[in-house]
C-alpha cells in the first residue's frame, strides 16, 4: 500500500474533480436496458428493440464502469519489476542439477528406454488407422458421373427436355433422369445455330439440332458456372470470373480456369427427347493429381 502514500494526497483532490453522477446515469441506462429487453421479449416487438435495449443496457454498464475505473485511475500510477531479465542464476543451476540427477533414472536403463520409445511410437502410429474411416478412397468416383448411354435429360424439377423445348439462343440446366440430386452431373444445355459451332474434331455427332451440353462444374474451383451471357455466348462462373466459349467446346477465354468444360455427347431418342450418348469422356470439375 506504500504506493498510495507516494501519491502525495493529490488523488483526493482529483477525485473530487470528477463527479460520480455520469456513472449513475449510465447505470440507470443499464436498468432501463434490462427492463426494456424483458418488455420487448414478452411483447414480441421486433429484434430491433430487443437488440437495441440489450445494447443500451450493456453500453450503460460499460460506460459506467469505465468511467468509474478512469475516475479512480488517478489514485495510483504504479510501478513494478519485471520477472525478466532478472534471471535467478542460482535457481537455474539448481534446476539443471536436479534434472541431471533424475536423468540417470532413464539413461541407466538404456535398452528399456529404447523399448519404451518404440512402444509409444508404434502404438501411436497404429491408432491412426481408424482415421481412414472418415471417408472412403476416391477410387474412380472423380472420373464418372451418373450419365449413361441413353440417359434422358431432365430439368431441375424432373421434366423431360424435348427437341422443341428450347428456341434458338435458349439455355437450361439439365440432369440425367432420376438423378437430379447428383452433384457431379448437371449440364448447361444450349440451343445454338448448328453452323456457328466450331467444336474440336470428333464431336460432330454430339450436337443434334444445334443442342450442345457442357458440365457446369467449373474446372477451376468447382463452382457452378451458370451465368450465360447470350450476347457473347460465354458461360461465366460467378466465383472467380472464368469465361467459357460455348461455341468452341467451352474453351476458357479468360479467368483462372485452364481446362475446357467437358462436353456431353447428345442424341435425340425415338420419342423426340434429348438423351446422352454416353458419359463425359473426361472427368468433370477441377483438376487433381492423377487427372490425365
Amino acid at each position, binding site marked *: 500500500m506504500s504506493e498510495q502514500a507516494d501519491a502525495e494526497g493529490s488523488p483526493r483532490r482529483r477525485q473530487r474533480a470528477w463527479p460520480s453522477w455520469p456513472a449513475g446515469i449510465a447505470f440507470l441506462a443499464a436498468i432501463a436496458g434490462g427492463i426494456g429487453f424483458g418488455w420487448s421479449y414478452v411483447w414480441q416487438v421486433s429484434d430491433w428493440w430487443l*437488440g*437495441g435495449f440489450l445494447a443500451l443496457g450493456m453500453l450503460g454498464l460499460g460506460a459506467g464502469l469505465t468511467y468509474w475505473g478512469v475516475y479512480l485511475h488517478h489514485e495510483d500510477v504504479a*510501478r513494478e519489476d*519485471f520477472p525478466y531479465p532478472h534471471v535467478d542464476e542460482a535457481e537455474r543451476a539448481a534446476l539443471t542439477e536436479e534434472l541431471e540427477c533424475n536423468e540417470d533414472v532413464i539413461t541407466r536403463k538404456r535398452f528399456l528406454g529404447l523399448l519404451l520409445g518404440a512402444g509409444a511410437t508404434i502404438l501411436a502410429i497404429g491408432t491412426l488407422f481408424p482415421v481412414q474411416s472418415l471417408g472412403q478412397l476416391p477410387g474412380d468416383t*472423380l472420373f464418372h458421373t451418373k450419365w449413361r448411354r441413353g440417359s434422358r435429360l431432365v430439368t431441375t424439377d424432373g421434366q423431360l427436355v424435348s427437341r422443341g423445348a428450347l428456341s434458338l439462343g435458349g439455355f437450361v440446366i439439365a440432369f440425367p433422369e432420376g438423378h437430379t440430386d447428383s452433384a457431379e452431373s448437371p449440364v448447361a444445355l444450349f440451343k445454338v445455330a448448328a453452323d456457328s459451332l466450331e467444336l474440336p474434331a470428333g464431336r460432330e455427332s454430339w450436337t443434334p439440332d444445334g443442342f450442345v451440353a457442357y458440365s457446369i462444374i467449373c474446372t477451376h474451383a468447382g463452382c*457452378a458456372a451458370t451465368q450465360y451471357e447470350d450476347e457473347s455466348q460465354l458461360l461465366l462462373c460467378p466465383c472467380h470470373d472464368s469465361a467459357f466459349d460455348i461455341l468452341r467446346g467451352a474453351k476458357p477465354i479468360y479467368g483462372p480456369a*485452364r481446362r475446357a468444360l467437358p462436353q456431353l455427347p447428345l442424341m435425340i431418342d425415338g420419342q423426340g427427347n434429348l438423351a446422352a450418348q454416353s458419359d463425359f469422356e473426361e472427368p468433370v470439375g477441377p483438376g487433381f493429381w492423377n487427372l490425365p
Partner: protein
Amino acid sequence: MRTDNEMTAAKRGGEMTGQISQVETMAPEGNSDATSRASRWLDENLGGAGFVRRSMRHIFPDHWSFFLGEVALYCFVVLVVTGIFLSLFFKASGDQMVYHGSYEPLRGTTMSAAYSSVLQITFDVRGGLLIRQIHHWAALVFIGALLLHVCRMFFTGAYRRPRRANWLIGVTLLILVISAGFTGYSAPDDMLSGTGLRITFSIIESIPLIGPWLAFLIFGGSFPSADFVARLFPLHIFLLPGLIAGLLGVHLAILWRQKHTVFRDSGGDDKTIVGTRFFPNYALRSGGYFFLVGGMLAALGAFLQLNPVWLYGPYSSWSATSAAQPDWYTGWLEGALRLFPAWDIHIGGFLLPAIFWPGVVLPLLLIGFLYYWPWLDVRITGDRGVHNVLQGASERPGRTALGAAILAALAALFVAGGDDVIAVIFGGNFRTIVWVLRGCFLGLTPTVALITYYLCRLRRRPTSRMKNTSRGAGPAPVR
C-alpha cells in the same frame, strides 16, 4: 446503508466464530469483516491469499493498443455465450427434407435439416435472429481485433525474447480462430457458404499425390456430402473452441507471468513496468470494456444485417450466387484465386492444378512466415537480448516496410476478391480489371515497402535524439 451492512456482518461474524474474532479485530481499520473472512477463506482453503494479493497488484500499462487483445478476448466470451444458445436449436444434419416452416418464400423447398433449423432460429425462435447476428458479428470483430493485435506485436517488436513462445501461441490462436469462423460460417449449409466449401474441397483436391484422398477423408466422400454438414458442428462447437479456450488460458498465464511490455515514453524500462494496478482500477475498466464491446456487438447485431442466409437459399450444386461476398477474413484468399493465372502444370502424366499455388502455398507461406518471424528477426538483427521495452515503428524501417508490404499485398488481394463488385460499380470487363488488379498487387507491394522505409528513415532521426534527452530526465510522464 454501507455501515448497516458492516454492522450486521460484524455481528454475524462475532456470533459465528467466537475464538477467531480476536484475529479479526487485528485487521487494519476500514476492512469489513466480510473482506477479512473472504481472505481467510482463500488462504485456508486454497492457500491463495498471497497469489491473489500479488495478482491484484498486477500492473497494466496505459496505452490504447493493449486494448486490442482485450477486445478479442471479450468477443470470445460473447461468442461462447451466444453460441451455447444457438447450439441448443441448431440441427447438425445434412439429411434432406421439405421445409414447412413459417418463412413463406422457401416453403416446399427441399433443404438440409441444418439449413431448416437455421430458418427456425431466424424466424421462429424469439430473439434467435438477434443472437445469431450478434454471434456472427462477434466472430467478424474477433478476427479483426486479432489481426490488429498481431500487427501491434509485429510493428513494435513485442515478439522478441522473452515473448517468443507467446507469439507462437498467438499465431496458433489466430489460425484456430479463423478456422472456427469458417466452420461456423459454413454450418448453415446455405448457398453462399456451400459454394465456399466447394472451393475448399477443390483446393484440398489440388494437393499433389494425396489431394483427392485427403479431400474425401475430410469431407466424407465426394462433394457435397451429408456427413460433412454434420461434421462441421463438433469442429465448430467443441474441438476448435476447446483448443482456443485452452491456448487462450496459456497465452494469458504467460502474459500474467511475464507482464505486459512497456512503451518507452510511459516511463517504464527493461526492468520496470509502469501503469495501473489490476485491482481495483483496471478491473473496473476491464469490466467496463467488456460491456462496451458486448454492447457494441449487440447494437451491430440489432441494426446491421449480415449474412441473410434465408435470401441465399439452401445449397445446391447447380446454382451459384453472384455479388455476394464471403466473410471478410476469407476475402484475400478469394482474391488470390481470382488473380492467379491459369498455370496448370503437367509433370510426367500428372497434373498440378493452378489453384494449388494461391489456395495452398500462399496461406502456408504466410503462416510459416508468422511462426518463423521471431527467429528470422534474430537472424537479421543478431539481437538475442531480452526486451521489455517496445520499439517505435520507425526504429526498424526494414521490419516496418516488410509488414506494410505484406498488409498492402493482402489488401490488394482483398479488393480483388470483390472484383465483380468493382465491375458493377466502375464498368469495364473482367479481363481489364483482373490485369489492373494484378498490376496493383505486383506494383503496390514494393512501392508501399519503399515509401514506408523512406518515411521511417525520415522520421527516425529527430525523434530518436529527443528520446535520448528525455530518457535521462527521470520520472515518467503520467497519463
